[in-house]
């Protein structure tokens, strides 16, 4: 299956080109074909290609550094192929289904990986996991597909929270809220000082609103209900979901009215300039902050609404999966073992310079108060969720974007919006 038969391929090539040749260029083009049949992958021992979407300069450097270190170990060779993340997202199915796919892919854990696994596109990496005894069970479950095989190897994760500038909170005389009532009080104080309390950036990045939905849902209804809802086992027009939006409606007046117009990167600028009070966002936003502002940043966890619900946090996990058609499964697994190791993860965290946490329990995270606080928050959580699209699918995400954007515009139409959301979600689940 993995070995190409060059004769057949050449024959098909000429056959296909004969079609184009009807346009009058047969001889010319088949001359091209024979000289450009692409790099033939030698079965078994070739370099392992990592198709990477880590296109930001720091993350790109970090993953290239890891590949370099792996090559020095003498267990095989790896080469990194960085593709613009937006291109990567749309082309990933094409890469995986092509006849001669790259071996390893950077991607997300959770249902998005399971989707590909259920189509038989992912390599079974259960034997890599046999060596990962130190990893917590929750990560193993997260990396397991519906058939019970492990298909994913995690490397890093990060957290979401309400970020703010310490100096601004001190200036406005407010403290980190712990409960929903505290939170409303902080919003009220900031509003009375003429500062839009809650920043958001939905232009071009409407998915940022899903963080609010996720958090309210896991705070009010709990993580198990949230997962079932995103898996299509519960309904969006359920009264429990209505309770989520009703709660959200209480704070809608505190949102930055400009937030619908600009993307989250500019919302970050607004937060740093003190034009908004706080911002529910993932740690990746810090890459958009000037270096001198980083020390002034702090965050608090999404306020507790119902103390009876076990505390869950969003901790999107990033890592790798491999193609089932990889020409070099042994080398690919060797590389995955390296990525799962303490050295590799510490190296990655160090060179990527972004705020990410290594998932290996023994790997040390970056040494900063912010990172320690984030790590402690995730460790104290009873349950971890990924994010809306990662817990469901990239196909369900647009339905959330539509529904939530509409809700923020017309909060009085909750019932109609939820009915529509359920209808469009059903279409997605039916496939």
């Amino acid at each position, binding site marked *: 299956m993995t070995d190409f038969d060059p004769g057949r391929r050449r024959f*098909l090539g000429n056959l296909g080109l004969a079609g184009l040749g009807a346009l009058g260029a047969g001889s010319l083009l088949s001359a091209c074909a024979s000289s450009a049949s692409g790099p033939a992958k030698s079965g078994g021992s070739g370099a392992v290609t990592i*198709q990477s979407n880590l*296109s930001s300069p720091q*993350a790109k450097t970090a993953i290239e550094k890891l590949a370099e270190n792996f090559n020095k170990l003498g267990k095989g060779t790896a080469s990194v192929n960085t*593709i*613009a993340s937006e291109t990567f997202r749309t082309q990933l199915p094409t890469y995986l289904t092509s006849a001669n796919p790259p071996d390893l892919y950077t991607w997300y854990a959770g249902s998005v990986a399971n989707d590909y696994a259920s189509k038989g596109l992912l390599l079974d990496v259960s034997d890599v996991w046999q060596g990962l005894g130190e990893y917590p069970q929750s990560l193993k479950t997260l990396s397991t597909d519906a058939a019970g095989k492990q298909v994913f190897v995690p490397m890093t994760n990060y957290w979401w929270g309400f970020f703010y500038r310490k100096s601004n909170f001190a200036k406005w005389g407010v403290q980190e809220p712990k409960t929903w009532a505290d939170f409303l009080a902080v919003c009220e104080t900031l509003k009375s000082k003429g500062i839009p309390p809650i920043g958001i950036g939905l232009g071009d990045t409407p998915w940022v609103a899903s963080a609010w939905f996720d958090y309210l849902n896991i705070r009010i209804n709990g993580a198990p209900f949230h997962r079932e809802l995103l898996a299509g086992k519960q309904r969006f027009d359920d009264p429990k979901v209505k309770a989520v939006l009703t709660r959200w409606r209480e704070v809608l007046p505190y949102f930055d009215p400009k937030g619908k117009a600009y993307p989250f990167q500019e919302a*970050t600028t607004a937060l740093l300039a003190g034009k908004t009070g706080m911002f529910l966002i993932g740690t990746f936003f810090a890459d958009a902050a000037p*270096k001198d502002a980083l020390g002034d940043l702090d965050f608090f966890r999404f306020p507790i609404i119902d103390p009876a619900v076990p505390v869950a946090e969003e901790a999107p996990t990033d890592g790798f999966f491999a193609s089932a058609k990889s020409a070099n499964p042994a080398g690919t697994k060797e590389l995955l073992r390296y990525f799962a190791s303490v050295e590799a993860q510490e190296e990655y965290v160090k060179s990527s310079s972004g705020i990410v946490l290594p998932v290996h329990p023994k790997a040390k995270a970056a040494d900063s108060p912010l990172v320690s606080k984030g790590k402690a928050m995730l460790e104290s959580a009873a349950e971890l969720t990924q994010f809306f699209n990662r817990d469901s699918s990239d196909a369900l995400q647009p339905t959330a974007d539509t529904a939530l954007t509409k809700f923020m515009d017309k909060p009085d139409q909750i019932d109609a919006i939820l009915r529509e959301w359920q209808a469009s979600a059903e279409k997605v689940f039916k496939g």
Partner: protein
Amino acid sequence: MIRKLRTGTFHTGMILLSLLWLGPVIWVVVMSTRTFDDIAANGVGSLPHSFTLDTYRQAWVDGGELRALINSLLVTVPSVVLSLALAAVAAFALSRYRIPGRRTILLLMLAGNLLPPQILLIPVQKFSELTGLYDTLWALITVQVGFGLGFYTFVLHGFMRDLPGEIQEAATIDGAGPAQIFARVMLPLTRPALAALGALSFTWIFNDLLWAITVLRTDDRMPVTPALLALQGQFVSSWSVIAAGTVIAAVPTVAVFLRFQRHFIGGLAIGAVK
């Protein structure tokens, strides 16, 4: 007096209008000289608080624009030459000889251009894999030639059809065969149209993104448009580096346009008056 006033108003109006067109370009150029921290602190729309040319170094070296520009030219130049050569031959045959079904052939070629390229993405990707060309620059050249051919033939056909038949007859009487007529009579006469189409197709192929990301998947084979996209991070983008990369990427098309400018405008006008 009134005349002066009219010229004055005209000039003021035109200056304002051209500023409207130049505005975004100037904005991008100014943005390309700002530092990351300046943009992060003040936003993309604010006036510059900093000046640096390091963004150009970052785009050129870290962003791999040199490699990308070479790839772009490796694709664009052969595609333009090949598609114009094929289109000229086809147009010559269709316009100067009574080939049975020539109208149908021409309409068929044009009809291909009416299909939105988006619906052909998956077939083209699968086809390029079948032919073993997937992830090579040849695949991109083939696609660009294939998709450009219909339109170029149509334009050149219209142009060649209007050339006086007497020239061809005179050449035939002098003993020239079809190949000689094409090379020595038709091609020189078609030069303005070829130059205009050449500049146009250069811009189209050079600026194409869709086909490049459909048939390529290796970063060091990507032409300049996907390379620009790769300057964007997963979540956060350094807009000043992207702006610098965009300025660099615009240079070849501007150069081609300036070089062929005269033909370009001339070529457009010729078709119109006749």
